[in-house]
Each structure stands twice: as C-alpha cells, then as structure tokens.
C-alpha cells in the first residue's frame, strides 16, 4: 500500500430540513491508492450518505471532497468527467433493463470514452469471462439471478476502467446463497490492487479483505483502524456495543 491519497474528505456535512437532521456531521477521511476501506455502522449512521457524497450523487451541504487533487465539490468542477473514474455498485444493482448485458456494459465506454463497438465489446467480454458470465452477454437483466446481476453491475463499472470503486451495500439485497459469489469477485478485485470503498454489513469480508475499517455512527466517524484491531479490541464504547450485536 502506498501513501498516495486518491480521495480526501474534509469536514463533510450533509444536513436535511435546514439542519435538524444531520446525516453527516463533520467527516474527515483519506482514501489511499490501492487501499480497501470498509465502512461499517448501524443503519442511519450516515455510511451510505458518506459513500454517495464521494461521487456527488448526494450533494454535501458543507465540506469538501478532493479526488486526484481536484476539489469536486467546487461548482465549476466537471463532475461527469470525475465520475467516469469512480465506479459505483449499488445495493439494487440498477442494471438497465431495456438493454442486453453486453449493451449495459458497452454503453458508457462507447458514448463517453469514444471506444469503438469492437473495442468496448472486447473489454466487456474479457471482464465477463473473469466473473464467469461470458455466456450471458446476450441475455437481459431480468433473466439473471441477483448474484449474477450484481456481478454484471461490478463489470459495468469496471468497463470504464475506474481509479476507484465505490460499493454501496452490494450484498444486502441478495439471497444468502448468492452473497459468496459477489464477495469473491470483490476479493479478486482487491487482490488486483483496485482502490475500493465498501459500505457493508459483511463483517467477514471487512476483516478478511479490508485494509482499514471505518466505524460510523450518527453521521460521524467514531473509530477507524486495521480490521483485526477494530474487531478484536475496539477502543470506543459505541464500536464495542455495535460489534457485540453483529458478530
């Protein structure tokens, strides 16, 4: 792991209803290149909001997000260009139901990166091969299982050749028997050196794959540390009580 910072978050705030609800209440964080950061915490702790602020799907009410040295919260920043380098995977997959799998994968590379259809399809097919779904290229999303959909969603983000991948509870909507296949793909990705920020309830994954675990509660980062430290000897009482419930 290098110390090259890819995303820097400073005093991030997200308020609703004029400040009566504080989804994020002053979050500072750094994501380093090649690092796998796992964000855990009780529901309503702001961890998804935090993740969604990183690519500005959610506009923070205060603070800054700096991506590769650019302040992307600056209204003048071209957020669309930055988002091309930040892949995102959603809880509910959000594949495009009116397109085949192959079209799902090649749409953005062709329209945004100017790749030819052949180039885009070659990349898509080789990535599909890696997740074991190359035989489903001409299927429609509705014909796939949840686990397959999520693997396709990961591939769709990877087709843009991103610098960082954001995962928003990628296994929470899956049947239990399909969680493994998605986590395997994510593990493989982590081993290949992809920078990842993962919001999840999969503590096993956090412990095994994470380089660092962030515990959030009530819109703040309560504690962050190496996975084995967080899980074996959490310092904060909030962390202890949360882990006692989920482990």
């Amino acid at each position, binding site marked *: 792991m290098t110390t090259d910072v890819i995303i820097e978050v400073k005093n991030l705030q997200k308020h609703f209803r004029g400040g009566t609800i504080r989804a994020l209440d002053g979050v500072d964080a750094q994501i380093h290149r090649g690092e796998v950061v796992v964000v855990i915490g009780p529901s309503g702790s702001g961890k998804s909001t935090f993740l969604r602020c990183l*690519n500005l*799907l959610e*506009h923070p009410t205060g603070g800054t997000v700096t991506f590769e040295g650019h302040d992307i919260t600056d*209204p003048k920043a071209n957020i*669309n*260009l930055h*988002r*091309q380098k*930040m*892949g*995102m995977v*959603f809880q*509910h997959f*959000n*594949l*495009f*139901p*009116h397109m085949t799998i192959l079209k799902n994968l090649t*749409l*953005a590379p062709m*329209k*945004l990166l100017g790749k030819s259809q052949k180039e885009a399809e070659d990349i898509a097919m080789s990535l599909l091969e890696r997740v074991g779904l190359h035989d489903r290229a001409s299927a*429609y999303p*509705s*014909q796939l299982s949840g686990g397959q959909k999520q693997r396709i969603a990961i591939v*769709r*983000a990877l087709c*843009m050749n991103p610098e960082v991948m954001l995962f928003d509870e990628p296994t929470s909507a899956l049947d239990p028997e399909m969680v493994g296949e998605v986590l395997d793909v994510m593990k493989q990705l982590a081993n290949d050196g992809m920078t990842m920020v993962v919001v999840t309830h999969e503590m096993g994954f956090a412990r095994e794959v994470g380089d660092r675990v962030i515990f959030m509660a009530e819109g703040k980062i309560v504690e962050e540390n190496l996975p084995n430290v967080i899980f074996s000897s959490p310092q904060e009482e909030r962390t202890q009580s949360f882990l006692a419930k989920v482990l």
Partner: protein
Amino acid sequence: MFPTSWAEFHRRLILNFIEKDRWHYLVQGVLSTLRITFFACLLGIAIGVVVAIIRASHDKNAATMRRGMPRIFLKIVNGICKVYLTVIRGTPVVVQLFIMVLVIFSSQDKTFTAILAFGINSGAYVAEIIRSGIMSIDKGQFEAGRSLGFNYIQTMRYIILPQAFKNVLPALANEFIVLLKETSVAGYVGVEDLTRGGQKILGTTFDPLFVYIAIAGIYLTLVMFFTWLVGKLERRLQSSDH
C-alpha cells in the same frame, strides 16, 4: 329515412358513393385526416418530450439544486410549461383551432394551420403522459447513469426516456387515436378532412344516414387498424426484455 328494401339500399349506395365518383371525397378526406393526424402527432411528441423533461427535471431536482442561474432558469421554463399545459388543456380544441386560423396564421395554408393547432394541443397531453413515464422510472436508474459519468441529458436520452416511452406506449397510442378523431373538427376552418368530405357529398345527395354511417365506419376502421398495430408493437417491445 331508413331503407325499406334491398333495392332502395342499393340505389342510395350508388347515389351517395358511386355516382359521379363521390367516393373520391371520402378517399381524399381520409388522406387529409391521416396527414393532419400524423404530423400533428409528431409535433405533439416533440413538444411533449421537451415539456415532460423540463417538468420532470423541475419536480425531481429543483428542491435539491444549488442556488444559481441553472435553478432560476429551470424555474422560469417550468413556469412557462405550466402555463402552456393549463391554457391548452383548459380550452376546447375547436376554439384553439379557430384562434390559430383567424388570429395567428390567417394567410397560411389551412392544412398546415390545422397540423400546428392539433400538434400544439396534443403536445400538452403527450407531455403529461411522458412525464408520468419519466416519474415512474426508479431513481436508481438515474443514479446508475450519472455514476457512470453520463450528464443529465445523456442519462435521459439513453437510459430514462427509452424505458419511460415503453411504459407509456399504450397511453400514447390512445392519445394518437383521440387525436385522429379530434381532427374531425378541422372542417370548421375549411380543411377538407374525412368529415368535411362526407359533408360535401351530403350537400348534393341530402342523405345524412348513409353518409354519416360511412364516415363513422371509416373512422372506426382506422382506429381498429392503429389499435392492432400498437398491440403488435407492444408485444415486440415486451419480448425484447423478458
């Protein structure tokens, strides 16, 4: 009034439609009706898509947008769209047609004026249909598009609108059929559409029963044909994703 024998039926049929090639009026009328409906429908969809995108964008985003010029601009165009929808949907199409002919395009070609009037009228209804289609698409679709790096318009074009269109196709087809029938008032301003063509026959044969039933039969046939066509299209769209 009603024919009392086959012989009379036959005689009146010939009188109304065959003699002096009177059926030409109906054929010319059908062509004119279809021409007006088709182009008015295209215009209506063009207006409808633009208005629907503006209205849906406003309803979805205005509350969370940052203050500044884009937000002010969106609020203003949304206001204009709302006025358009209110005025068009709040007044009868015949009156709109008269205004279009008498005030706005007094010297223009009548068919062109009718297309414009019916297109602008239909646009208001199409806009609301498409808007409901856009609003029915899960917001995750929008987020997925934006997260890949598509801008707002591209996301609409490649991801949201194709799905929205598919969802509202039956309602759009219905609007087309309503429009087809509504153009029957175009005769009021001198357009020689199907209804007007029939009335021309009536002017020489004075046999309203035969003429109006013939007109009704032709409208019904057209409507049934388009209903069948849309059903076919819908089935094809459905088979493409399930």
